[in-house]
């Protein structure tokens, strides 16, 4: 009974203050929606874009402040010498503000800011008729992602997921007059629905076995009941993996990705590739490490099997993503398949579990996610510029880019090197750290698959370079809008910086993040 009361604990005003990053975005969404109604029809909607950017910046400020606050408390003790938890738990531990969630929130907000900034230069009225909506709908989507990162309860987690999904369904279909966009939106809604259904089905079994929705409570229940219901647990975990596998577009659940990425407006593609994917990874981490990690019985090594399944999905995603991308000529589809392979790389630290002396999984994950964020958004920003100039997303649009826009071509070289995992870029160190983690865990087969898939990917990534440097130029002028140019250069410079001094990011994560207090949800 006590547990139930704790679950029902309501939100107080002081709790609400902790949620400032989320509230601000919600407030901005409403305000901007109203503003959009009152603005004259013919006025440019870029003011709304800038306000969206402002809202995200304020939210980012609060998120960073929250993170420093949380970190300050790490390792502190109270008057009696007892260690105090630095984690802020709201509503009976269903909403947590810890290092894990704060770091992810910061990444999501930064990514969305870059995406808005890149849209300001390239989104045209003829393409997206409701540009106001396009901008402010990004806000609830990020809120959804942030809720996913913070939740310690299956219900909050699902609410966040649906908030993110439903807004992105709209965003994908926002190019109302384009057939492709409508097709993409339809496909996305259907697969998204299937994904939610699979996830819910899997979670319902967990609820059935343990009678709880809180991940901490489930973890406790599982430890007691795992040996009684091994079959149910396997079903549950595999359904959850399948549902989330669709969300992160990992093979074999990736068939929707190329079509949807192609049909969606380029900024939305970037959002799907980075924020949507990253948020789903947050849930994967939470569920697997909180629940599956403890699900073991003497007869059935459920936890080992689940983590092995994650690695198998990762391997499939890497190999299938890279090989399918070989024949792609549409850059957006190519980025979708590259996203499939990258989902595989990101899954490796998840699947490594905690073996031997290795516990840096989250550090490796966050670093690679940051590198992936930069290279993907940068590449898609370039693509949006090229699309504006030549009117399509085919790889031929890059032909002779070196002659038309040498500096942009140089930035693309940086992104390609990073995507291919070559030094000295963020992508290289991201992969290197994951490889080291796998080597420390003695999982040599996944190392082999990672590097093989990287080598396969050289072929199509360098295909872009071949176009830029070795093909005759086409006579269309490439004009890089200032805001998009800023995004391209921020991403390129940051990618190189991560490649030369990758230390600080990883140091920060590994020094402050603790699996026990920041990832595990524990009833108190």
């Amino acid at each position, binding site marked *: 009974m006590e547990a139930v009361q704790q679950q029902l604990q309501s939100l107080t005003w002081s709790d609400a203050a902790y949620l400032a990053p989320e509230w601000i975005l919600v407030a901005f969404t409403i305000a901007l929606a109203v503003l959009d109604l009152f603005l004259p029809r013919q006025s440019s909607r870029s003011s709304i874009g800038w306000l969206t950017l402002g809202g995200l910046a304020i939210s980012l400020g609060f998120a960073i402040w929250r993170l420093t606050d949380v970190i300050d408390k790490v390792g502190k003790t109270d008057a009696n010498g007892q260690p105090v938890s630095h984690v802020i738990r709201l509503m009976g531990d269903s909403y947590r503000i810890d290092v894990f969630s704060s770091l992810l929130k910061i990444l999501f907000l930064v990514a969305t800011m870059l995406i808005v900034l890149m849209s300001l230069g390239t989104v045209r009225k003829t393409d997206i008729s409701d540009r106001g909506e396009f901008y402010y709908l990004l806000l609830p989507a990020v809120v959804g992602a942030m809720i996913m990162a913070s939740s310690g309860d299956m219900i909050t987690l699902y609410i966040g997921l649906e908030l993110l999904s439903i807004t992105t369904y709209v965003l994908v279909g926002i190019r109302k007059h384009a057939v492709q966009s409508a097709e993409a939106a339809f496909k996305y809604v259907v697969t998204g629905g299937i994904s939610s259904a699979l996830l819910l089905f899997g979670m319902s079994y967990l609820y059935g076995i343990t009678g709880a929705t809180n991940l901490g409570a489930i973890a406790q229940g599982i430890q007691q009941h795992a040996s009684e219901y091994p079959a149910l647990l396997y079903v549950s975990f595999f359904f959850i993996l399948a549902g989330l596998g669709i969300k992160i577009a990992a093979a074999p659940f990736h068939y929707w990705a190329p079509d949807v990425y192609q049909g969606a407006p380029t900024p939305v593609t970037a959002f799907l590739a980075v924020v949507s994917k990253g948020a789903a990874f947050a849930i994967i981490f939470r569920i697997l490490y909180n629940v599956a990690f403890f699900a073991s019985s003497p007869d059935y090594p459920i936890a080992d099997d689940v983590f092995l399944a994650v690695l198998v999905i990762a391997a499939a995603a890497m190999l299938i993503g890279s090989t399918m991308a070989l024949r792609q000529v549409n850059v957006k589809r190519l980025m979708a398949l590259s996203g499939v392979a990258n989902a595989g790389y990101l899954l490796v630290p998840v699947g490594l579990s905690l073996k031997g002396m290795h516990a840096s999984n989250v550090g490796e994950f966050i670093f690679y996610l940051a590198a992936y964020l930069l290279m993907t958004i940068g590449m898609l920003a370039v693509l949006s510029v090229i699309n504006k100039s030549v009117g399509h997303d085919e790889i031929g649009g890059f032909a002779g880019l070196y002659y038309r826009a040498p500096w942009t071509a140089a930035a693309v070289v940086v992104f390609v090197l990073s995507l291919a995992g070559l030094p000295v870029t963020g992508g290289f160190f991201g992969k290197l750290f994951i490889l080291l983690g796998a080597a420390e865990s*003695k999982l040599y087969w996944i190392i082999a698959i990672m590097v093989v898939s990287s*080598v396969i990917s050289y072929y199509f990534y360098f295909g872009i370079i*071949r176009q830029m440097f070795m093909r005759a130029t086409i006579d269309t002028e490439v004009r890089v809008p200032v805001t998009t140019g800023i995004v391209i250069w921020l991403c390129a410079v940051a990618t190189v910086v991560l490649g030369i001094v990758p230390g600080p990011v990883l140091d920060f994560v590994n020094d402050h993040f603790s699996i026990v207090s920041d990832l595990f949800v524990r009833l108190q």
Partner: protein
Amino acid sequence: MLADLPILSLITFSPLLGILVLLFLPKHRSRWLKATAIIATILPLLLSLWLYADYDSTKGGKAYEETATWLDVSLNKEAVGEVGSYQFELQYHMGVDGLSMPLLLLTAVVGVMAALASVHVKKRWKSFYIWFLLLEIGMLGVFLARDVFLFFVFFEMTLIPMFFLIGIWGYMNRERAANKFLLYNGIGSAIMLIAFVILVATAGFRAEQVPEKQQTNLSYCGSYEVITTNLTKADSYVNMSTEQTQGQENPFYLSERMRWVIFLLLLIAFGIKLPIFPFHTWMLRVHTEAPPSVVMIHSGVLLKMGAYGLLRFGVFMFPAVAEDWKVAIAILGVVNILYGAVLAVVQKEFKLVLAYSSISHMGIVLLGIASLNEIGLHGAIIQLISHGLISALLFLIVGSIYERTGSTELKDLGGLARSMPFISGILLTAGMASLGLPGLSGFIGEFLSLLGLFDSQQAVTCVAVLGVILTAVYVLRSILGITFGAMPEKLAAVRDARLIEAVPMITLLAFIVLIGVYPAVLTEPMKHGFDTLLQQLSEKAGR
């Protein structure tokens, strides 16, 4: 005095100066661009000559070593309990020893000569020279890096510029050649990375006690020194099997079989670069499609990186495994020699003759390595240097001939001795060096390698000697056909070498003769380079 300077970094990064200047030069000023690039390659040559003069083989290269922390990444400590620190260390660690010194000189020399030979480049000079200098930085760094990941970074730094140099400035099928180059070498470096990562996670682990703080510092380190020391010390974690740790699981232990696997991975990785027989197809394409000055670098230096890596990371780190594998390596070498030589005999295109001859000559290097004694190893290194110089010279000549005649098909060429006596003379001499005429460098390398191998594997050596005969056949057939024989009408009017072509030809030839008559210039710095290895081998034999 030299030891006070960060001389190794200066050598490696001095071409960067040229890149910076090039960036600010207007791109149509081809003369300025060329001059800048040539000067930028002379810098590392001068510096490495200075280093060579200062280098004392009895003291080794300790004095010149440069170590700086590149990265100390903390790892999550939750699984290791109470420790002072738990880190992954990546060092910027440069060093030089008897093994890298000669190769460093080779790189610097061939670099300058190739820059001079780049006068044949017809388009986009600015980006050509920028990629060229980046390539040079990568090559110099490969031979000096002493951290496995730093080595890997430099190794990959040669990959990307080569891709551009082949793909943009090559002949007709340049893009396919560039792709093939990228994929094969990509696979090679990927395999190398697997081996390195496993090595760092096991042999790179160390636990240091800090008595004053009563704590232990744990780290994974990529430093070559740390890894080799750990591998040789009997009480390091990597050598403690489960029996020695009283049944406790030791995650850092490398079993005998794992060592074999790592050695095999390294053999394949560097075998692709070297190239060892079944992995050689990519280099034929590069030889025929890349511009001559780039082939000079490729054949002159890049192939040598394979042999260097195999020695440095394969043989030096795992002498015991190398001992087990030496017959296999020797057989691979013989296969290379005979396969390359037989196919060189039947080629119709001069560049392919030279490409197959490279395969054949690199086989001799494998023989030298397989001997695992001082004579043979010296022979291998001299063969590396000698082949680097000879093939650079031959491709320099090929470039000059192609520019004048527009063809390198053997049937289109003939009687060139009449219209260009100077180039033909050099070509003949280079050919003689290539087939191992005493007094020229090729002889010394071949002779020492075979002599070294004869010590332990007589039968293999005897088969290998057959290759020497075949070499004479294909060299004389192709080169005599080009210089003498019937001259096609249109070749009557071609002019002899210009000064800018003659200078690198004479210089390279001078080095070839110098090594041929006075090999001590190379053996002197190498003298004690193999001491540790030979000592370990004799210890193993004694046990």
